[in-house]
């Protein structure tokens, strides 16, 4: 277990995981909506502040799992409660904990009935999401992975739009079906590793080639549906459209990242040989997603759908970066995961703010609101620019690194990805143009009020990070650097070992 740097003293990670869950218990008893809002905001804020204390103690020079905790759990099956953080997961955890209080703020007036139940779902969701990013035992991981579906199912199914039942069931069944094979893979790995579920021990082993291919396919199905990669994305627009704002934000900013996180954490280290073999297919599927997502977004009338399809394109860039398997690509991909979380999260918040006023997500009903809501359109304008990777904003750095990595890997591949950038400009501008200026027959919406201070506070941190990562991404890259270098060293070392073994 030399991959773990055991936590000394206060069990910070466990606190982060279980504090929201514990906080939710009180809401089962106290059913006052107003209290529920303040209480959840307090709990998520404390978790956010606590998670920030990880930063000063986080060692950037090691690829090992830090703040690790290790306790026996179900000893007869050798299942342990083992958690830890490395450079790949730390930013994702911080993204999760920091975004949650703003999701609560965004639901402040948006959710009007069954508020305590809503907040309980949010808190359970947070526990499961943090857990997924820190779990180092495969059973623990799988339980939390599936556990996320339940609160999300309720978030969409109870507080969603008109077609909420269809959307929630499709979301639930589609993603659940994807993970079934993951369970089979876990059990196979369990038996192949001397009946242990400890994930770091499963990495870089010389599993037979066929087994690796099968494992990779199992991983791929589970993660590609979550990302979602084209053509496994059809659950996403439905879920996004129907989900309440907070649900959309969590879905876009965090849940989608679990798929790409899964690729980095499991597919690459556990099945390196299969990854090398199947890499070209995944790369071209990513390209297909970038173009397909962009073209589809171009034709949408529903703003949430438009952003949902743009996510398909953006996440295509992330998988592209991961599977070019060089440092520019992977670091760009991780950064882009964070960027997409910030930018798309903010865009969904913005659409939610329009929806609260006009009760419509149709572009046609939001035309020309720029003249009534100047602050709002300034903000949504900046987030849209970030979404189309405008230089100076966060996504530019990420996309630039991914494209540089893609170029290093294969020139035609990189060329094929670039039309996606033109498409991104086209569909985001189409939306912006309608919102800001509209046309000659704009509906008279002079009764619209501009953002209030709660809403501005909700969006301000997103704005801050758009420019911070856009202009000074170095601190973020430094945190992931050791882990990514280690991942790539191990990966290429493994390849060399395979080639060397093949020669005898």
């Amino acid at each position, binding site marked *: 277990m030399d991959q773990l740097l055991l936590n000394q003293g206060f069990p910070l990670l466990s606190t982060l995981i279980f504090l929201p869950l514990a906080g939710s218990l009180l809401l089962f008893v106290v059913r006052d909506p107003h209290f529920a809002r303040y209480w959840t905001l307090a709990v998520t804020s404390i978790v956010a502040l606590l998670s920030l204390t990880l930063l000063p103690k986080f060692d950037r020079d090691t690829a090992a799992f830090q703040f690790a905790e290790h306790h026996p759990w179900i000893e007869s099956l050798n299942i342990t409660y083992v958690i830890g953080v490395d450079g790949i997961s730390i930013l994702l955890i911080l993204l999760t904990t920091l975004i949650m209080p703003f999701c609560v703020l965004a639901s402040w007036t948006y959710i009007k009935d069954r508020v305590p139940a809503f907040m309980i779902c949010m808190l359970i969701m947070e526990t499961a999401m943090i857990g997924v990013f820190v779990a180092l035992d495969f059973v623990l991981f799988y339980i939390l992975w599936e556990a996320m579906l339940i609160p999300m199912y309720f978030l969409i199914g109870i507080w969603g739009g008109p077609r909420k039942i269809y959307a929630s069931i499709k979301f639930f069944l*589609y993603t659940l079906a994807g993970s079934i094979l993951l369970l089979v893979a876990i059990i196979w790995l369990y038996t192949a590793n001397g009946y242990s579920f400890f994930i770091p021990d499963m990495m870089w082993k010389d599993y037979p080639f066929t087994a690796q291919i099968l494992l990779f396919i199992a991983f791929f199905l589970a993660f590609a549906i979550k990302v979602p990669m*084209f*053509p496994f*994305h*059809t659950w996403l*627009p439905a879920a996004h459209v129907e989900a309440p704002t907070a649900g959309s934000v969590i879905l876009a900013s965090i849940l989608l990242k679990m798929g790409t996180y899964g690729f980095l954490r499991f597919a690459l280290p556990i099945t390196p040989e299969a990854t090398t073999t199947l890499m070209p297919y995944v790369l071209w599927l990513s390209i297909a997603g970038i173009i*397909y997502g962009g*073209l*589809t*977004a*171009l*034709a*949408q009338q529903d703003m949430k759908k438009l952003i949902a*399809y743009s996510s398909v394109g953006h996440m295509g860039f992330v998988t592209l970066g991961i599977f070019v398997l*060089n*440092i*520019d690509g992977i*670091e*760009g991909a991780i950064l882009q995961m964070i960027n997409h979380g910030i930018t798309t999260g903010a865009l969904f918040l913005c659409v939610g703010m329009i929806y609260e006023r006009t009760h419509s997500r149709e572009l046609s009903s939001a035309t*020309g609101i*720029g003249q009534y809501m*100047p*602050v709002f359109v*300034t903000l949504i304008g900046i987030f849209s*620019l970030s979404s189309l990777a*405008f*230089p*100076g904003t966060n996504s530019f*750095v990420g996309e*630039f*690194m991914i*494209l*540089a990595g893609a*170029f*290093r890997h294969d*020139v035609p591949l*990189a*060329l094929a990805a*670039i*039309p996606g*950038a*033109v498409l991104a*400009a*086209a569909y985001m*501008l*189409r939306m912006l*143009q309608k919102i*800001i*200026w*509209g*046309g*000659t027959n704009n509906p008279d919406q002079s009764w619209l009020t*501009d953002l209030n201070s709660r809403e501005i506070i909700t969006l301000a941190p997103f704005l801050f990070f758009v420019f911070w990562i856009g*202009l*000074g*991404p*170095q601190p973020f*890259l430094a945190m992931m650097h050791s882990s990514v270098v280690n991942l790539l060293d191990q990966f290429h070392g493994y390849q060399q070992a395979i080639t060397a073994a093949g020669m005898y």
Partner: protein
Amino acid sequence: MAQNVSYLGMIPLLPLIGAAVVGILHLATCKKKRLPDQLYAVLACSTPILTFVLAVKVFFDLNGLPVDGRALTHEVFTWFEVGEMNISMGFLADPLSSLMLLFVTFTASLIHIYSIGYMAGDESFAKFFAYLNLFLGSMLILVLGNGPVVMFVGWEGVGLCSYLLISYYSEDRSNVLAGNKAFIVNRIGDFGFVLGMAFLFWAIGDSGFDYISLKTNAHMLAPATVTLVCLLLFVGATGKSAQIPLYVWLPDAMAGPTPVSALIHAATMVTAGVYMVARFSFLYVHVPTVGLIVAWTGILTALVSAIYGMFQNDIKKVLAYSTVSQLGYMFAGVGLAAYSAGIFHVFTHAFFKALLFLGAGSVIYALHHEQNIWKMGGLKTKLPLTYKTMLIGSLALAGCPPFSGFFSKDEILYSALASGHTGIWVVGVLVAGMTAYYTFRMIFVVFHGSPRDAHAYEHAHEPPAVMTVPLVILAIGALFAGFLNLPSLFGGSQQVTHWLAPSLAEHAHEASHSIEIIAIAASVAAFAIGIFIAYRKFGKGAEEPVYSGFSSFAYHTFRINELYDVLFVRPYKAIGSAIGNLIDAHVTDGPVQLIVWFYRQFGSTFKLLQVGYVRVYAIYMIIGLSVMSYLLTQSFK
């Protein structure tokens, strides 16, 4: 060696701060009590003036350095660094960028001041100035960036501001669409820029991606890579600088307020493509074939847009096509490796074209937003100052000696002739004649003859001093700027060419004075013929012509917009809507729906057995028990 000076970072930063301050003040107060416009005017105009002062300082600092060491740099911070890749946010002032810096800040200051008058009383006065400051900041990043990536930041920034300002009068939907068109056409060009940059990075980016390192390492590039990079970068240039085939956005961009047309769509932003080619002269000089493509694209653009310019009715459209046409000349210059001639034309063009647009702005202002030249006429008595300054600008544009445009245009044409590209020279001279024709067609129709709209004429009056003083200053520039690069034929010493020499990879064309005299004589003759025909047709008043046949075809700009619409816009939209509305829901999601359907069928088959009658379930029970007991007896045998 390059000197590090920290004030370089302040130059782009100042207008950006100005934009932020004005913008935030506007957002915070626009719904409540509005702050006085004068406050915004002072705030917004102070930043370009300050940057101009700094630009002058840059010039003198550079001048104090030895010729081969004329470079000031400042690295503000490391932008991002991964593995071998290291991109820094840094600035470089060398002779080329310092010249750009001088005229950009100079014209920007004047146009900011002019806008105080032109935009007075506008509902979102502050917003306009915030955008204008944001534009200037981006333009300065573009000019001063120390490498292609920083240049790209400015490149996209100016594109954004152009987009926002074209759509400024958003009540009219066509203005908004013009803004969109500008942004998307520019994005297509940027596609080339990004690719060129990516190839360059891929080839030699790991050993430094700023101009100085790139210049040092350029010899490591394979010839094919240089060709490819130069071609792709030129695609980017055709977008931003409105050349064939991407020029279509610029005439539409005239939808923006006139000061914007003067600053962004005439003097500064649209010349960014020429600047880029000159910046990468160390690559272009090695691929004369690409240079020839650049030159021919330029001169053909000049020809086509001059034809359009002869048949336009909107005063701003005439000037817009003349801008496209003049940009074509500049590309002809840099394409033939006469980089300093191209840049010198950028420089003089900034004065006389900004002047002409601002003059047109005064006319439009005086006539309460009338832009059709056939509604004007006889205005020289009503707007004498505007008339005189515009006349100077027109003489410069038409290439009348000794106005500035004559020297810079002549230098390009002379280089074409001296380097043996007679074809380009002939077209160039032809275009010069056409330029003189359409420019003076405009002058005669607008200012001479008798008024066509008596009512508008009666109410026309000279604009306030805040607008006329910039006109006068620019007119002085348009008149004298040419003397800065006086060729030896006229006893000059070509200061601008010598100043630019350290930045450009140019070899001077050695040619005899006799060729120079031929070039000048041809240009002057073309000018004289053009102006003569214009005088014959329009000098003593003329009625609005009815366009038919070729002239109607030219008036509709050869129906290029319609062609693009059919070829690109519609197919793109159709594919998008086919995927979005049909394929995604029915094809991509098909397998999923098939599985769902299968399960449903499976379930409903079994549903048939669930009839809900106790007697039926009793029969099931009996059947089940019988089967069980049969199996049990079998197993005990």
